[in-house]
């Protein structure tokens, strides 16, 4: 019998390979099947909505669009882009999210750092104030009056400043700072660095994981904020994507009814802009920024689940 020979490369690969027994293989297959099903559960609704947004209006009305477009058209998307406040809302949401996250990170870090230092006098009292404000919310009417009194109603600041620090996020960062070795700070101090230099050059570079995670939490908070933006803004030009989506979904029947018309010759105009098609087009277009950004922030979302859980 001829001895079985393997190339050196294959030998190297097989050194650490432990063959699976039958039960492990079955478990792996089941795991894959479950994961595929879960993935489909996430993908198929999106496919359904996108397909409706670009399908022929009569096919949408007849319910014949499932996961693939029927009779491709872009009238509904064109309407969303040209006749609704989609781009204004997207711009507002991006400004609020980007500027808000930057401001929130600044306030969070500059609050968390002193509160994480044991030699900061009054640390317990200030921390207690944050805990109290985290547990008790004054309510929307007092909050509205504060926003009105400082004169920022119906501005970007009304959508940013009330959420410039989220206590929970601040405590995550504070706890992370407390876990850093004090020796590093001491050596920086010996080298002549003041507190600000220490924070900027030593602490922050060592805290990139928690900062990225908390920044992501802030960004999600700003992106998804509906209720407060709705209460603090009035102008159509200040509408964010969340408000826009609510409004277009609740008004799509009225929009389509006012658009739809027939010429004397029997040509139907705006036939492709149906209630469901319009909703689908607006929702699909709103998904694009999230889908585009997700691959870049995915790992921080995963680390966000565990960050701050080691030391509480």
């Amino acid at each position, binding site marked *: 019998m001829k001895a079985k020979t393997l190339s050196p490369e294959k030998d190297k690969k097989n050194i650490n390979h432990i063959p699976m027994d039958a039960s492990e293989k079955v478990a792996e297959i089941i795991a894959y099947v479950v994961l595929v099903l879960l993935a489909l559960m996430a993908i198929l609704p999106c496919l359904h909505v996108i397909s409706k947004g670009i399908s022929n209006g009569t096919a949408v009305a007849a319910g014949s669009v499932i996961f693939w477009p029927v009779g491709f058209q872009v009238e509904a998307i064109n309407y969303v882009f040209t006749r609704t406040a989609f781009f204004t809302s997207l711009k507002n949401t991006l400004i609020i999210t980007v500027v808000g996250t930057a401001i929130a990170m600044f306030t969070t870090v500059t609050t968390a750092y002193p509160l994480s230092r044991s030699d900061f006098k009054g640390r317990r009292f200030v921390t207690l104030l944050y805990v109290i404000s985290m547990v008790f919310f004054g309510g929307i009417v007092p909050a509205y009056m504060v926003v009105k009194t400082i004169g920022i109603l119906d501005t970007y600041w009304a959508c940013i400043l009330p959420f410039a620090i989220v206590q929970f996020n601040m405590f995550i960062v504070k706890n992370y700072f407390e876990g850093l070795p004090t020796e590093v700070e001491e050596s920086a101090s010996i080298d002549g660095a003041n507190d600000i230099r220490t924070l900027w050059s030593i602490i922050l570079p060592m805290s990139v994981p928690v900062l990225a995670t908390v920044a992501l939490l802030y960004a999600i908070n700003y992106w998804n904020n509906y209720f407060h933006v709705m209460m603090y803004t009035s102008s159509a030009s200040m509408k964010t994507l969340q408000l826009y989506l609510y409004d277009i979904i609740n008004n799509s029947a009225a929009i389509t009814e006012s658009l739809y018309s027939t010429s004397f010759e*029997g040509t139907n105009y705006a036939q492709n802009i149906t209630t469901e098609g319009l909703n689908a087009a607006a929702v699909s277009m709103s998904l694009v920024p999230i889908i585009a950004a997700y691959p870049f922030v995915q790992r921080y979302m995963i680390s966000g689940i565990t960050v701050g859980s080691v030391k509480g």
Partner: protein
Amino acid sequence: MKKLVSLLLIAVLALGMCAAASAELLGPGNVTLKRLSYTCPWDPNNDYMVPIMKEATGYDVDFYALPSNDADNKLMLEVGGGADYDIVTVNINQWRMLLAAGALMPITDLLNTYGQDILAGNTDEVWATLTQDGDIYGMPYMYPHSQEITSFLVCRKDLLNAAGITELPKTISGFYDMLVALKNFYGDQYIILTGPLVAASEGNDSWRIPKCITSAFGIYSDWMVEDGKVIYASESPKFVEMMNFFNKLYTEGLIDVDWAVNSESAVQEKFVSGKAIICCGSRALVNFTTAAMIDQLHISMDDLCYINPLYGDDGVCTYQESEAINQVSCVLRNAKHPEDAINWINTKVQNQLFINIGVEGVHFTYDEVGQISPINPIFANERGDSYYYIDATNAADYQFQWPSRIRKSAGQWHAFNATTITNPDLSIFVKNYFKFMPASEAYATNNTALYSSLQDLILQMMAGVKTEADLATFANDFANNDGEEVRAELQAYYDSLAK
């Protein structure tokens, strides 16, 4: 939260009343008005209607819109916070909230000075509704066609004809015979009758059973008046007979087996895809279904026909008039330019045809009988959004002008013409006695729950889950949910009308 906001509102208004508004008309070009209205999916300041209104009135206006959700709280919060909108156009319940909170400016004198066309455009009965302690507090935008058949049945005439049915039924027994004939001919090939339409965009037709069928049993609303007494639909002498009829349709497979769970879009899909022969219809539904069916099923407009409200075998047919006031425009106490606000609205009423319908020969023509016929697509493209900017109308003129908005859609006009325009029997319409009733506590608190229970009972009796024997339990639940208190309020209001 509403109570808290109301307290805030009163405090702010007390201060606001000290601040004087400009007491003279500044006129077009000298002022920018602020108008707040209901939710708007587009930017109301960037719509094609804005320059059209500017051309007609000369006024610059900044438009603001309430959100689609939480609009009441947002409105009260804004007004309580001292908002200085010159015009607020809201639904009648929101208007009542503002009035009760003391947020509105009396406008009788302003209307007499600057709003003669608005005053002349509406009846004394309507103005009385918007008057408190001798002062007018709002301007009405009336529902333009109160005697509209908002609920009807759309039928596939081609399938009816193939089954040997050439004449549409007018009575409830004729209707039943038609359904049986269709079932015998087609078997399970088609759903004979699909429905309901539970999300009708206008009117009060979100019933689980179509009102064009309940009409044959003398039932036209949840609250009705019989011999001067306010009764609930379930107390109507023919309620049980009606439910037995629907149960018969259900058990004999003459109506959609999914009736209880069908959404509006599901009903639409079944009809458009050709699975159903008859469908509960509304003006909003046929706007799309007719064109979609022509496209998908390759039928023509003539292959569709409509069943109007049915008569009972005793000749009875009752159908309630549509609600009367669509929107109310009012002026806030904090408004900076109330005179110009009224003047702007009055100028819009003077130019009602131009602003809302357009220019003859460009946007519309007059047909052989003198009705307005829109020219498409320019009518839809340049006047389609005009409805959003209406604050008040000359009601009589608008009743003539408004059907052109339906006529811009051939499918919608086909149904409207067959049901409302050519329906000769106006005697079927029952007045909605409670359309102008002021807000009352028990009604506001409990009627939604009562209505929901009634709709549940209707579905359960239709499916045979509940029977006549369960009506006593329903009556007990009705009483426990303060139904009698609601009835007392309605009865008191009805009695006050009789005086």
